[in-house]
């Protein structure tokens, strides 16, 4: 239903302890944005490709397509960084525009490249996590690190309800579309609004039904569920430590 969600259940890294995967993600991500090292970022991009595609067995073409997703944001916002309007030309490039220049410095060009590469490396960390770890596993770790109960309970329910509502929204959309509800912009906007309100009403109904069902199973103010415990493997933790040490060395070692 949601591609990333469907894929993460098929990943061969799924059964590794979620704590290890989250540790790896958070530490690598931090090193990436603290150091802003281009070499480090390239190293991270490569290793995440290996982890996600080669070991995790997520399709390579699909993975590359996903990595391209944030590019629109990247291009638009780095373009804004690169282009200055000034009376004085900067040392990178300058295009005359009447009495002004469209201009940028060499340094900003370097900064832009640095930003793009390190951002993409960070995105690859996020994908590593979301393409290998089901949301329920992440919630389990959040609970372990003392995230407030009410929050983790809400997350558990919201994750389930998202799919319920998507299913309803899609069914509504299909039925509207089959009656030509989106034939032009005006009808389309009105149909979309109608779908929104119908979805809201159905979600209220569902919330009542599900609460009754929870009560019927003895709910009394606390959602307690079992997690399928996965074991922490010292070997893997060791590998993460070694990996991060190497990454720090690379990141420190220059650009």
């Amino acid at each position, binding site marked *: 239903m949601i*591609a990333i969600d*469907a*894929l993460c259940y098929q990943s061969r890294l799924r059964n590794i302890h979620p704590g290890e995967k989250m540790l790896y993600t958070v530490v690598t991500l931090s090193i990436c944005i603290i150091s802003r090292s281009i070499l480090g970022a390239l190293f991270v991009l490569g290793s995440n490709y290996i982890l996600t595609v080669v070991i995790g067995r997520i399709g390579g073409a699909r993975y590359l397509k996903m990595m391209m997703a944030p590019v629109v944001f990247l291009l638009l916002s780095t373009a804004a960084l690169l282009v200055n309007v000034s009376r004085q030309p900067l040392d990178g490039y300058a295009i005359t525009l009447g009495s002004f220049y469209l201009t940028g410095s060499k340094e900003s060009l370097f900064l832009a490249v640095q930003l793009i590469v390190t951002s993409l490396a960070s995105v690859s960390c996020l994908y590593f996590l979301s393409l290998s770890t089901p949301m329920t596993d992440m919630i389990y770790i959040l609970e372990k690190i003392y995230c407030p109960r009410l929050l983790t309970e809400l997350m558990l329910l919201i994750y389930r309800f998202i799919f319920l509502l998507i299913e*309803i929204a899609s*069914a*509504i959309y*299909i*039925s*509207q*579309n*089959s*009656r*030509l*509800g989106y*034939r032009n912009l005006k*009808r389309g906007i009105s149909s979309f609004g*109608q*779908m929104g*309100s*119908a979805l809201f*009403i*159905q979600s209220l109904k569902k919330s009542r039904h599900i609460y009754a069902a929870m009560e019927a199973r003895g709910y009394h103010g606390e959602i307690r569920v079992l997690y399928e415990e996965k074991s922490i493997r010292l070997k893997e933790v060791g590998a993460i430590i070694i990996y991060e040490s190497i990454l720090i060395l690379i990141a420190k070692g220059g650009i």
Partner: protein
Amino acid sequence: MDKEIVLEAKGLSCTYEMSDTPSLENVSLTIRKGQKIAVMGANGSGKSTFFLCCNGILKPEKGVLFFHGQPVDYSKKGLQRLRSKVGIVFQNPDNQLLSASVYQEISFGVLNLGFSKEEAKERVEQVMEEFSITPFRNRPTHALSGGEKKQVSIADILVMEPEVVLMDEPTAALDPKHTKLVYQVIEELSENGITVIVATHDVDYACQWADEIIVMEKGRVLAQDVPQKIFTSRELLKKANLEIPMVIRVTQYLQEADILEKESTVPRSIEDLEELIKERRR
């Protein structure tokens, strides 16, 4: 069997993203004008996918769908034409009824067809009258009973005056009274010359109602034939996980016990069987 062909599928295949197996695989079939067709098969056998193809919501990867002999044109205009002629009544009315009032709800499709408010009004009034919706026309849609919602969701489609109506398990979750009512509406559609295609799990109903039954399994068409043929082929029924209709089972017992002749016609409904039993007496 020489009525005009309304819908024809030639080698339709359809695979959903994130799925390894196709939802429709090389589906070929023909549907003639005014026929009553039951589509049967387990959940996941491709019935709903086929319906969505007929209406142009899904575009098949392979194969061609013909409407009145013309391959379907997937341009915006072509789709509009197709959707104005082929309507789908979805299984769950809650996902179809979106407007606050019954009147508004039924007018949705006509207005989308581009009719003026006056013309739309006329059509809506007529459909409401015809399908006995007038008594509850002023109630908000969410206050209707399950059966009434179903009636409105059928009127939703009929108001667009389609040639073909596809219904996805029209009696799921209805009680006996409303089931009967829906079956009556379906009967009226056929009487008005509309081609009706119903996806159903109810073998007894399919056996007695349908002119032809299409049996599907894992995205393929296993058979398309008259009920008497379909429901006496044990192998086919087993393969498609279908029960034998009660009427046919009882008939078989009666034939084995020599109460009915082995060559007697296969009864399609319990009324047919009653006739057979009465005839035997004479």
